[in-house]
């Protein structure tokens, strides 16, 4: 399949070049006058029309992309600040599309309308202070509004404080996985540093074993968050830069070795609820259809592999929608697969889950 495709592309390229050579040669025949390679009225006419067509193309590709791809976009934000984020994004996009529509129209339409003709006189029009003023002041006003709104939202989002009894969670990054640590019963994280990492004794996050706050810390590989409670994240990395990216919550912060970074948000939609969201239901349906199709292919391939006595490939699981934490800063070979599942649940479910987890103290005791 691939080979055929590659060959087809190569063949098309070859044909294209051959055709171009023909054009080149044909145009060389008439090239006895020195002005042959300068646009004449005919070229201006053709390319003027093409500019008009190109304008239509830019609109069409916009409409096509919206029609075909807007269903790919993330569902409504599942965090409190995310609602404001989405609204600001929407307003910015409306402004962008208005400006885009108008300016692309003017640019290409002028290109078409004023295409050169023998004897046509251009207008000597070098400057106009009023026009310059208009298109300076309009962006100034629009941008001032966007800047103020953006800064107001930004200050709110980035104000990580201890009001409203936030849940304290550490996100710990390393090549190529995530670990989360809860403060435990006291909701305070014990001190930690990479120099205290002791792999043999399973102290993989370098917690200070003498710190009394550390004993009740809970270390997990799947992030559970109670809905409606503010979460203050403290990010750490042990090796290279990573970025904790939680797109469903409109949240992202880099994890930097040598320092602790922070981000805070309040989840407002549980995993169970988001799975009921109609957009999400459709997405899951589409995705599982694709996965089923892939499985048909894999089964076929496996039959051949089996016949040759080679190891077979695994089939894809049917997918259930989940929130996810991704790494979004290039961190090495397996950067593309550095993830952790996030589950947002009710307070009761969260507490029940938490009860089943071992504390750091218990883990250490069991290793002794």
């Amino acid at each position: 399949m691939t080979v055929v495709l590659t060959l087809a592309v190569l063949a098309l390229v070859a044909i294209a070049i051959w055709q171009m050579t023909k054009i080149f040669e044909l145009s060389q025949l008439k090239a006895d006058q020195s002005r042959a390679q300068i646009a004449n009225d005919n070229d201006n006419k053709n390319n003027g029309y093409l500019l008009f067509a190109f304008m239509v193309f830019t609109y069409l590709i916009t409409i096509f992309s919206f029609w075909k791809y807007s269903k790919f976009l993330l569902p409504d934000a599942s965090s409190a600040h995310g609602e404001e984020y989405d609204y600001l994004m929407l307003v910015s996009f409306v402004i962008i599309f208005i400006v885009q529509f108008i300016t692309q129209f003017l640019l290409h339409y002028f290109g078409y309308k004023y295409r050169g003709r023998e004897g046509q006189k251009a207008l000597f029009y070098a400057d106009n202070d009023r026009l310059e003023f208009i298109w300076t002041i309009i962006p100034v006003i629009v941008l001032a509004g966007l800047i103020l709104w953006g800064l107001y939202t930004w200050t709110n989002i980035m104000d990580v404080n201890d009001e409203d009894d936030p849940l304290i969670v550490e996100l710990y990054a390393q090549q190529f996985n995530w670990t989360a640590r809860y403060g435990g019963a006291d909701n305070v994280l014990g001190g930690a540093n990479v120099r205290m990492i002791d792999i043999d004794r399973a102290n993989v996050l370098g917690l200070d074993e003498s710190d009394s706050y550390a004993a009740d810390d809970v270390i997990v590989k799947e992030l559970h968050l109670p809905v409606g409670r503010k979460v203050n994240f403290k990010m750490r990395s042990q090796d290279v830069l990573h970025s904790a990216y939680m797109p469903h919550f409109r949240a992202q912060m880099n994890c930097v070795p040598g320092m602790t970074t922070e981000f805070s948000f309040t989840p407002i939609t549980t995993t169970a609820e988001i799975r009921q969201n109609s957009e999400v239901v459709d997405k899951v349906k589409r995705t599982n259809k694709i996965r089923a199709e892939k499985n048909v292919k894999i089964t076929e391939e496996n039959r051949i592999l089996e016949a040759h006595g080679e190891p077979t490939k695994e089939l894809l699981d049917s997918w259930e929608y989940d929130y996810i934490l991704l790494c979004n800063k290039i961190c090495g070979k397996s950067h593309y697969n550095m993830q952790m599942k996030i589950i947002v649940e009710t307070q009761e479910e969260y507490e029940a889950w938490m009860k089943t987890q071992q504390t750091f103290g218990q883990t250490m005791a069991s290793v002794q």
Partner: protein
Amino acid sequence: MSATAHAQVDDHAHDDHGHHHKETFVTKYIFSQDHKMIAKQYLITGVLVMGFIGIAMSLFFRMQIAWPGESFPIFEAILGKWAPDGVMDADMYLALVTMHGTIMVFFVLTAGLSGTFSNLLIPLQIGARDMASGFLNMLSFWMFFVSCVVMVISLFVEAGPAAAGWTIYPPLSALPMAQPGSGMGMTLWLVSMAIFIASSLLGSLNYIVTVINLRTKGMSMTRLPLTIWAFFITAIIGVISFPVLLSAALLLIMDRSFGTSFFLSDIFIQGEVLHYQGGSPVLYEHLFWFLGHPEVYIVLLPALGITSEVMSTNARKPIFGYRAMVASIMAIAFLSTIVWGHHMFISGMNPFLGSVFTFTTLLIAIPSAVKAFNYITTLWKGNLQLNPAMLFSIGLVSTFITGGLTGIILGDSTLDINVHDTYFVVAHFHLVMGISALYGLFAGVYHWFPKLFEGRMMNKNLGYVHFWVTAVCAYGVFFPMHFVGMAGLPRRYYENTAFPMFDEFTDIQVLMTTFALIAGAAQLLFVYNFVRSMFYGKKGPKNPWNSNTLEWTAEVKHIHGNWDGPIPHVHRWAYDYSKVDENGEYIIPGQDFVPQTVPLQEDEEELQH
């Protein structure tokens, strides 16, 4: 005072021109000190050779993204051990992404674009016999050449080339155990870039001195063509910002090789704690982006300058708002040095700094908007000669607007949170600086090809095909890409199969890659047209585009010193196209342009622009 200074320079240059020394092959074609030859050397090394490598790399990793895990014989043939059974290795994917970025940004669009056209046009358009220092100019090119060679060599080292992204953030780039590309490949990368920076500084200083000192009589700063303004300001921001990148590179070399801790602290990797203590990767990010952001404009401003000149000439109209254009260039240049933090909103730096950088960043949209509107107004009521160069200029304005508008999203610290480092960013900067700068470059090559190759002209029909295929494909690749980014897909992922939420993007990825492959093929057409026209292109008239600027008064045949006789004097600005007197007649009857060398007519007003 300045008049006498000019006169002296003029006389001296003319005297000097009297004795011709015999040129050997080596002094003429290799270690040439002639700016026209150096421009060609930059064009061929920077654009054709490095550009080919850089674009080919992007096609390779686009194929991997569209058809992950698929086996391609071409991968096996070219990547060798990095593509066992024709399937691209994940480390090689990152290396290709890194080297594509490095080569395109620095080698093609900084050295290739600026190097070619600053060298060619500065002396010719200001009326100088050559650069202020031909020797430094030659040195600048050969250092660039050496840095190219080192960078290309780094592609062949055992553990592979640098693979930490073109921004080479430590600790990933500093620790050889973090990824294979951070070994010898990264060392060579740093060495190559250090030489590159030295070359760039030599070149820039030369451009600045030449523009300030060697303008011909009458060529006041306010009569300079906008190309020269753009090259001049670009050189200044290069001189201001490139040394900071050099310091970042030097400190990184120290951390890598001499055990210092400028950028590293508290690291546990591969089962052991490293000794580094007290450094910060965020410091590196500040240093890098202090160059990195102005770099965007170092790439873009020359393209905008070229567009101004090409668009005005082919519209047969003066560029609209000359003074506003110059002011915009200066405002953009100034602002570009104080916006770098918008690459770091979520780096862990103080959020208050983020607020400041949001403010300065969105300000830069104002001069950019002024430029875009001025270009559009320049087309209004023109008599547009739609040569390939003109189409590329119009294309530049189109992509500059499309890509620039999404900058409003990314420059806003709030909105950046969720699209930072996703494909949305990739789409944004490719349109606004990558494609736009390439269009500027192509416009320049088509327009000044006769100046580069002694009157030969490129084939226009091939040029048209080249433009239209490229224009459609560029949007075909990058427009859908915004949606993928908005859907939360991070950039630099080797494959997207690890997340079922990205499963349904397969088709869109295939679409983008298909457009990219066609666009890549269209560039071969350009190379073919270029090489063929270089040898067999038909010679056109001396001033093929009926242009006002001085370069078209210089000898068609390349001679040392550019003008056979004395250097022409300048009497007006460069944009008197279709200027008419009170009776509505052209200033020069039957000719819709008035070259800069034509004195003002008796009753003619020189409009103060």
